């Protein structure tokens, strides 16, 4: 087994373990911490694919900014441990079949496309990425940022409604 493959399996195992822990943990802070582990493991996977810029941004934006807000809000609300509920009927009849179907679909796709995975990894430079983003895809990029701006304005309007 080659070194990148070993690293891939280690990171993938960490990501999956973090995701499982996110659901199983009963305390919101522990769940949020597990989610940070998932984010950082995903950044490692991006790095393995040669997307260094995406990996750094994944940690800065998701691992840093967004998850800090999650933790901040949980701490501010002082949310306590959650009670375990009974196994819901919806999960039994709709959830499990859906999960099995999605897993089957993804595994089928991976098995059928084994040739694609053998491509050599090339490092995409930050310069190439930014040229693509600001020249070829400038309209979708700017539209997305406009969408985020609208969402921020909406949040401010909702927060200010009381006054």
């Amino acid at each position, binding site marked *: 087994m080659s070194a990148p493959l070993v690293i891939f399996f280690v990171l993938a195992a960490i990501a999956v373990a973090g995701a499982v822990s996110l659901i199983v943990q009963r305390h919101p*802070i522990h769940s949020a911490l597990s989610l940070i582990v998932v984010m950082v493991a995903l950044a490692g996977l991006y790095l393995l694919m040669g997307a260094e810029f995406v990996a750094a941004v994944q940690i800065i934006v998701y691992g*840093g900014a967004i998850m800090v807000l999650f*933790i901040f809000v949980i*701490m501010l609300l002082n949310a306590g441990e959650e009670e375990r509920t009974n196994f819901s009927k919806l999960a039994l009849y709709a959830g499990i079949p859906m999960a099995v179907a999605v897993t089957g679909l993804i595994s089928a796709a991976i098995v059928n496309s084994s040739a694609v995975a053998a491509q050599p990894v090339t490092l995409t430079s930050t310069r190439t990425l930014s040229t693509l983003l600001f020249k070829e895809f400038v309209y979708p990029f700017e539209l997305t940022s406009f969408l985020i701006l609208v969402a921020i304005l909406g949040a401010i309007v909702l927060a200010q409604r009381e006054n």
Partner: protein
Amino acid sequence: MNEFLTHYAFLIVPIIKIAILVFIVLTVDAYLTWIERKVIAHIQARWGPHRVGPHGLLQPLADGVKFIFKEDPMPAHVDKVAYFLAPFITLMLALTSLAVIPFGPQHFAVFGYESGVGIADVNISLLVLFAITALAVYGVALAGWASNSKYSLLGGLRSSAQMISYELALTLSVVGVLLIAGDFSLRSIVDQQAGSGHGLLSWNVFPQIIGFICFFIAAIAETNRVPFDLPEAESELVAGFHTEYASMKFAMFFIAEYTSMITVSCLATIMFFGGWLSPFPDSWTFTHYLPSVLMIPFGLWVIFDGIRYENLFGRLVLPVVGTVLTLIGAGLIVFPVFNDAIQGIFWFMAKVFTFLFVYIWMRGTLPRFRYDQLMSFGWKFLLPVSIANVVVTSVVILWRMH
């Protein structure tokens, strides 16, 4: 054996370099506490530590021994996992962030493996650094939350709010430098400041003076130092997020704080003050003797001070230290090879220690911000100014291109 070394050099060389760097950084951290206590003491017309060793020079060692042997009680009803993880996260991230910093210009090959003065020379080193600082909030926030104490919780909350707010200004203030350099690599940012050999005139601090001021203010806030040390405002919060920590766990927070001071000083040196470049023009080769010129008088002064020191231990040790320093200074004149090799590291260290001194000086001078002042300063002044700096810099660069 030799084949093994060349084959695994990519693994062995960084591990050795990490060990050396961690040793150096921890020693500098320890003596930074001594310098801080001495400088603040003299600002306040006191003596500072002077009992343990000559001039209190063995005080850091005594502190270390005390930290190790102190009892480490754990408060009741703490969240055990987070309580244990928090100091480790904080210290690990603080030490990791030093890994991408280049300390000097040299490249050398060990066991056929090419490497520089610094652990990892990645081409997105600045982004990696910001990614690591982005995660540093968790150590403080978790410590505050897990301690099950209202002082800790308030300290942790304040600290995370402060770090989120000032991280934006910190990141935006360096965009100007990135636009000038056109690269994320710290090494090429320094190389670009070499210009055409006119010394300090081509450093980034002159076109980016506003960026530098924003960066330095935000950096002080990020490292939780005076006047932004609200997370541990002792008159209001006892000791803030680390109230419930004792012994080695407390020491880990302490070491992390001093390490991030070093990291931020290194970053300011690299981004704005030309890193390892000399402030003098390249043609002034006589400035290469500056390390010796400083070191020999200092060594002689240590000898002179040591001979008439008040106790026997000092009279024995200080002259020896002074002789060693003088001999090193003289040796640099005799062997120009070594003298040329240390030039880069000498200037880098000189700049970093200047910043560290400013940190300590401010702690002895400035009062603490009030919480609302801190927030309105960060969001309503620092952030708009750094955004304006980005806009003006880009317009000027665009203008020059056409």
